[in-house]
């Protein structure tokens, strides 16, 4: 590879490289503790909400750098309503889940309506939402904590002591099911890549070089296998991981393969051009925020399940974690560019930094400072690399 190729490789994969370097740094600093099975498992469970919310936030940011500040409050409010329904009104947990999703979506639609059709700036609409739903959470919970006892709900949404997919093989000390899932995922990934390449070759389309592709496939397969091996050595697949995986796959598919997804990019890339191409731009804004409400409800359920309670302070700063993950993951602050995969890497990077510093015993206040600096550095890098492009 010559110099320009190396540069473009670094540019395309900056965040992956950063993630590897940061992980390496913490492996060195913590004496390898960060890669212990339990810590890998915690990385997923602790950050599940960031993955979910960042995916939704990406859809908002794509429409033109618009953010949703109300997310954390909506997470808290939905959780508060759900916990109250289940614990105080003895509502069946399935019905409670459905109600929570409906409430979250309705809140999203409420905000989306003002933004899309009345053209209230998103920043202001969601700032108002942030206050409204934080206040309502307090009202619903009457300022108190409600403990959750419904074990089915807790287990389903990744909380409590036993929130893992059960092992069907029963090998002691090693969750074979988890390993099998990991291997299956690898095989499916391999098949998809190879089939895609054969198809491209047949039709004579341009392709990445074989060397690059093999390197990419090996790295990704290795990461999946190591991950599942470590999880298998602990307790297996956390249920939270299943939910995150579904959300990421679904939204990754929508953004990259569907007309609807393409419309999000078009609106953020150039709203006027999108309008003149027959795209209903108002509808895209509306969908972005409605969807954000839906995913906030999902994150709300996961939060109360993990904490086995609902409190009026839950979800604080969640929106900032999600926004940070998006920008670190390469979404443009002006909209129109960004990928779900990038956001996942951004969220992972933040998660690794959090976890690594906690293991090292860094003061929580300094953790915030470091996170802030990382976010700023990522955006500076994005802005500068774009300038050089022009």
């Amino acid at each position, binding site marked *: 590879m010559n110099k320009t190729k190396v540069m473009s490789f670094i540019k395309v994969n900056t965040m992956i490289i950063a993630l590897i370097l940061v992980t390496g740094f913490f492996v060195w600093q913590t004496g390898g503790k960060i890669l212990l099975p339990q810590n890998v498992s915690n990385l997923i469970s602790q950050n599940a909400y960031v993955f979910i919310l960042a995916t939704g936030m990406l859809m908002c940011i794509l429409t033109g750098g618009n953010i949703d500040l109300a997310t954390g409050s909506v997470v808290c409010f939905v959780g508060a309503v759900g916990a109250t329904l289940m614990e105080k009104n003895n509502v069946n947990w399935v019905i409670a889940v459905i109600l929570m999703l409906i409430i979250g979506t309705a809140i999203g639609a409420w905000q989306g309506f003002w933004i899309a059709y009345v053209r209230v700036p998103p920043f202001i609409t969601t700032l108002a939402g942030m206050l409204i739903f934080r206040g309502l959470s307090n009202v619903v919970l009457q300022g108190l904590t409600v403990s959750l006892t419904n074990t089915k709900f807790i287990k389903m949404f990744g909380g409590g002591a036993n929130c893992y997919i059960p092992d069907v093989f029963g090998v002691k000390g090693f969750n074979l099911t988890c390993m099998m899932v990991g291997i299956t995922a690898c095989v499916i990934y391999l098949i998809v890549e190879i089939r895609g390449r054969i198809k*491209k070759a047949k039709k004579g*389309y*341009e392709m990445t070089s074989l060397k690059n592709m093999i390197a990419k496939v090996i790295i990704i397969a290795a990461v999946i296998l190591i991950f599942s091996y470590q999880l298998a050595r602990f307790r297996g697949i956390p249920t939270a991981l299943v939910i995150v995986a579904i959300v990421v796959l679904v939204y990754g598919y929508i953004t990259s*393969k569907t007309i609807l997804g*393409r419309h999000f990019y078009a609106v953020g*890339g*150039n709203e*006027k*051009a999108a309008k003149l191409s027959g795209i209903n731009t108002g509808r895209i804004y509306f969908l972005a925020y409605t969807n954000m409400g839906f995913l906030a409800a999902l994150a709300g359920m996961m939060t109360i399940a993990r904490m086995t309670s609902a409190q009026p302070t839950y979800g604080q700063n969640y929106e900032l974690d999600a926004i940070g993950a998006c920008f670190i993951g390469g979404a443009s602050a002006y909209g129109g560019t960004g990928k779900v995969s990038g956001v996942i890497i951004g969220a992972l990077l933040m998660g690794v930094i959090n976890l690594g510093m906690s293991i090292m015993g860094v003061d929580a206040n300094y953790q915030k400072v470091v996170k802030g600096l990382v976010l700023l550095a990522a955006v500076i890098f994005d802005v500068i690399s774009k300038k050089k492009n022009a």
Partner: protein
Amino acid sequence: MAKVLLEMKNITKTFASVKALNDVNLEVEEGEIHALVGENGAGKSTLMNILSGVYPFGSYTGEVMYNGEVCHFVNITDSEKKGIVIIHQELALIPYMTIAENMFLGNERGRSFAIDWDETYDKADKYLRIVGLNESSRTLVKDISVGKQQLVEIAKALAKNARLLILDEPTASLNENDSKALLELLLQFKKEGMTSIIISHKLNEISYVSDKITIIRDGTTIETLNKLTDTITESRIIKGMVGRDMSDRFPVREQENIGEIALEIEHWNVFHSVYTERKVVDNVSLNVKKGEVVGIAGLMGAGRTELAMSVFGKSYGSNISGVVKINGQEVHLHSVNDAIKHKLAYVTEDRKGNGLILSNSIKRNTTLANLSGVSRRGIIDADKEYEVALKQKEKLNIKCRSVEQNAGDLSGGNQQKTLLAKWMFAAPDILILDEPTRGIDVGAKFEIYCIINQLVSSGKSVIMISSELTEVIGMCNRIYIMDEGRMVGEVAREEATQENIMAHILKTSNKGV
């Protein structure tokens, strides 16, 4: 002879390999009103931007001599210090500030940390009286009419101690009385020793106020006429503005197959989308037949884009009324989607602002207006999309590394072709091309003309909006002429000359004075 105040010598300016100005010379004497005329894009504004420092010293070659010294202006502040003040065609006033605040913006009275508002308003009132504007300087700019805003701009220039006033199309958006008042004001200033340069399309106004007229065409100075020594007639000026040869610049259409009327617009009225009381299209009717290229000529701001966009699914304007018929059937196009469904396409004049998504690939831009053409049940077939983009790229000869390249990386000509590719993939029967060759080089222009010819020879209809008269005459079967929102003429190709089209436009501008 009076002293020469300004001399611009051998000015040459290039934008990314396109020569906007080529060896231009301009000499202005103290105390005269000097007019600068030329077609859209001839280079008038570029020249004035060099003079005022918008294009800094070093970005052009040639010499600017002002008041006997060589000037190297790097920004507008430099030129304003010397008393050169430019008033742009688009007024640069801030609506929610008072007249006085606007007038002294960047030129504040008092000290940096303690603006003297009493002095500001007092001085402002004084300048307002000089320009004959009977308003309090505490009035918000949004509350006064456009004509009065123009006067505020002039007062603002006076507040900067202007010695040389440059007015770019000062009467373009004014009505008769306001225009006349403005011209009288200029004559009044002249008596007091002020020097002015005026850029205008309204030849009657120019011949009324100016002492000398410099004609610019295609980035070069053609001649300077002096009121005292030359006999100035409008036809003389027009000839200077448009006289260039047209041979071989347009591909010949082999066979013409003009069919029935494809699109018919009747009694179309549109009001401005923001200033809803302003009528921008006034009772316009036109039609285009199958296999025909119809041109709409006119100056900038004649209402042509507004007409096209309002027809294209009401994407511009308010209070739209009139009838649109496609193939003889009346249709109601309430959204862009409706228009696309009725096989209509509008290719914007502003390819960067309204046309392309510069941060997206050529491929994504190509399919944007017809995504359902490359997908099934809402899911995009990536291979098909790639094939389509490749095919369109080859068909239109878009020069790029690959169709995955960002549209923003392309040259103007290739961006224009990408925009055309996008709309051709939407498979329209009627295409409205708005300034399809603006800002692109001669070679790319020729290619676009060839594409237009292919379109009509396959039975499609093209409406071409263009400010370049040669292009309209070279390409169109029929030419409509619009001015100030009205249809002021229609000429067939056989009888179309630049002189008679220009005459149609200028005749209607013959107002006031």
